[in-house]
């Protein structure tokens, strides 16, 4: 592929300019995006965009400097290198500072590129979004569509370092998403539905339309529940968000800096014994499956919590050096504008035996949580305090009842992991860094009237 060859050449040229005693990492990328929004059968906007840029990290005597630019011409790249070198002067020497080094772990190839998507026509993309709007409106007469969207992105990147890392990658993907409003008298509720794929042939537009309608209409007539301690059943989508929060407590850099509530808990019981949590970006079913991490090391499978026992934290090469271990291949890079951080790549809870209906049948008094809000504001992953706005269906004597909203659910992350009662068998590979699965947690405070 000519694109990645060109990007690799730029990265190589930068690294070749390294002076004695200097380590350099160059990351070069180019993205092409399409974003189409349909409203009432018309194209509301059509965005065709190409973004490219370079980020250069320089390390000398334990000091790190970084610079980036959103252009790739030779003068700009030279300026970026000069800026990064200048910035080195202001870093505090850090004995663990450094770049990743090849660690001999084999790369498991992933199929991340779809030629079918690359060749898909613009008219075809517009037609998909129009069709999604049409299907959604047809589900229920109470439904209005706020907008229906098609989007895709194709990225190519190259990384090179003076420590011998030299990799390229390319990846594309697409999604459709529809936002809905459901009206009943004075009341309006909202919903959304989506479908993702490596190419449009993987879309399930009917499912997206039905979910978008269902999410909005199911809350019509919802009441505010009273305050009590109760059992919650989390929908797979909610569990995936919950795992996203848990992942930040397993971040090796947070651990090294004393900022994780699990920092001294390796080999201890931190969760119910039915909880086994794995980060496995080598599983091709995972939406975020990848062959390389953000530093260019092989992505790999890591068991983080094993039958309730804390087994491992995730590390980049930097956080690993700080605590005297090896990178777990969990460097995450957000693009050319930053240096890699640490994070889980593709989390998954090992599923249980039974489906959601069976889980609910065992709940005498509880709530099926179908949506949450304010996870970023009401959850503190350092103290462990957990509080989220929620809506869903009440559960009474094993049966789901009427819709409820305008309440919060609260506990602490530490307690919730121990209070896991059962995990469903309904794994859903959502477009997030964690897979969804139904999850039952007891003894959560529901705050309403």
């Amino acid at each position: 592929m000519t694109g990645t060859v060109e990007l690799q050449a730029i990265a190589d040229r930068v690294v070749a300019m390294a002076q004695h005693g200097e380590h350099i990492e160059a990351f070069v990328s180019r993205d092409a995006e399409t974003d189409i929004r349909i409203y009432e059968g018309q194209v509301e906007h059509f965005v065709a965009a190409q973004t490219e840029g370079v980020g250069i990290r320089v390390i000398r005597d334990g000091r790190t400097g970084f610079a980036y630019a959103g252009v790739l011409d030779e003068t700009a790249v030279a300026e970026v290198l000069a800026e990064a070198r200048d910035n080195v002067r202001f870093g505090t020497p850090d004995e663990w500072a450094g770049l990743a080094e090849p660690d001999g772990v084999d790369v498991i190839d992933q199929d991340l590129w779809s030629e079918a998507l690359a060749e898909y026509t613009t008219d075809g993309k517009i037609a998909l979004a129009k069709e999604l709007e049409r299907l959604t409106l047809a589900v229920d007469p109470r439904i209005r569509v706020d907008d229906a969207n098609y989007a895709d992105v194709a990225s190519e990147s190259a990384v090179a370092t003076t420590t011998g890392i030299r990799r390229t990658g390319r990846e594309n993907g697409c999604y459709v998403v529809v936002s809905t409003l459901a009206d009943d008298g004075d009341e309006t509720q909202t919903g959304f539905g989506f479908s993702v794929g490596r190419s449009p042939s993987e879309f399930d537009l009917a499912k997206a339309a039905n979910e978008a309608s269902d999410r909005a209409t199911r809350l019509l007539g919802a009441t505010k529940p009273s305050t009590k301690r109760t059992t919650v059943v989390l929908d797979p989508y909610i569990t995936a968000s919950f795992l996203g929060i848990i992942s930040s407590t397993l971040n090796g850099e947070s651990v090294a800096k004393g900022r994780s509530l699990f920092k001294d808990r390796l080999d201890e019981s931190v969760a119910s014994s039915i909880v086994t949590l794995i980060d496995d970006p080598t599983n091709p079913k995972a939406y975020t499956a990848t062959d390389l991490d953000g530093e260019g090391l092989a992505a790999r499978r890591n068991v983080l919590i094993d039958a309730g026992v804390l087994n491992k934290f995730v590390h980049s090469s930097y956080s690993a050096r700080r605590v005297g271990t090896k990178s777990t291949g969990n460097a995450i890079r957000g693009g050319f504008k930053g240096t890699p951080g640490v994070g889980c790549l593709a989390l998954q809870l090992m599923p249980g035996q039974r489906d959601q209906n069976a889980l609910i049948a065992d709940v005498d008094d509880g709530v099926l949580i179908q949506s949450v809000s304010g996870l970023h504001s009401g959850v503190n992953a350092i103290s462990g305090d957990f509080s989220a706005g929620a809506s869903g269906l009440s559960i009474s004597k094993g049966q789901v009842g009427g819709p409820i909203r305008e309440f919060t659910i609260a506990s602490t992350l530490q307690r919730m992991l121990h209070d896991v009662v059962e995990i469903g068998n309904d794994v859903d590979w959502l477009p997030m860094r964690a897979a969804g699965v139904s999850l039952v947690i007891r003894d959560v405070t529901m705050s309403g009237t």
Partner: protein
Amino acid sequence: MAGHDVVESDVLERVLGTAMRTGGEFAEVFIEDKRSTMAGLDDGRIEQVTSGRDRGAGIRVIKGDTTGFAHTADLSEAGLRSAAEAAAAAASQGTGGENIVALTRQLERRVSPVERFADQVSKTEKVALLQRVDEAARGSGGSIVQVSAGYADSRKRIMIANTHGLLASDEQARQSVRISVVANGDAGMQTGFQSTGHTFGFEMFDRIDVEELARDAARQALVKLGARPAPSGTMPVVIKRGSGGVLFHEACGHGLEADLIAKGGSVYRGKQGEVVASPLVTLVDDGTMSGEWGAIGIDDEGHPSQYNVLIEDGILTDYMWDYLRARNEGRKQSGNGRRQSYMHLPMVRMTNTFVLNGTEEPDDIVRDTEHGVYVAKLGGGSVNTATGDFVFGMTEAYLIENGEITEPLREGNLLGNGPQVLRDIDLLGNDFAMGNPGTCGKDGQGVPVGDGQPTLRVKALTIGGTAA
């Protein structure tokens, strides 16, 4: 760099001509040249200084109800024309006649005076701010176990040219410092946070005591070491001045954005002239508020920023408008068309949004509250604009018992409904203050915004804690 044109006006005229080639009704070129610096301190070290350069143009073409948009980092005439062709093709398959555009330059005006642009300040000075922050926070007590701090600045030059003949430009400076502190106690770790941000130049740090901010972040974390679980249930909530403006931004402001109104995605649709809030409430969005985080000379469509009264004495007076929505309604823009960068389409966005002063003494508001929660610092939150339902994190809060502020509370969310809260404000203080700098997210784009309010009481909000 001050006052220079990133692209010459005759080039822009030709690019706009190209953009209209497929029969568009309106075309616009937005050009941005931004230099930024960031410095991060964590664990006692300056981990990294980052320099960034973002430069490019976004071109949009409107035909009927369709907007075509393309952007490019190539600011040569050929690069701009190629983006203009892409935007034109995206908007329309038709053909147009010859388009001659003559641009008239608007005078620049400076709403926030700048003495020292950050790109003229040494990195040593910037890094020194962080070292002072670290020392001050760590000096606040032995229980402070971790401090991280970030400094960021940017100097951005924007130019907007459109087929109505407008040629406008602005120079926007921003500096900010944020501080996160972790304290460790018998019951686990707690966190504190403070930040400051302005649209003045670097001289703002002569007036703002960053050490004081650091000590305040440390104080929050230390206070919370002894905090008890937040209550659960619905009760009166007093919100300290300058700490709750974000609630009005999220829970009310978004619902007053004309793009949401147009699609019926707002509870405030069709409510102009109606009572939507307690008569105590006057809500304003003001892009001209000198030095504040959301202050701008012009918006990202070239329209001068304005002081817009949204709700006056409880009555909804007007919405906020960008070019597209104003055009559709045949009215004037309000200076609220903003975008994250040249890579983004503009849409209706707030600037500095705040509730004006009432008459109560803040102490009397607390004294008048038998049992409830005092929120000294509100964190982030989110809102469903169609329903008005919101949640916000309480990052520093206390119990109110018998008219007095008593014990500190652990973190939790606060939940309510925007339109209901506006009606439920029953006491409004006389101690207005602006809050921390914010980044407002909408449709995937972040823009800098400010908010503010005096101390006030809401009759009933749901507190999402764990205590009975």
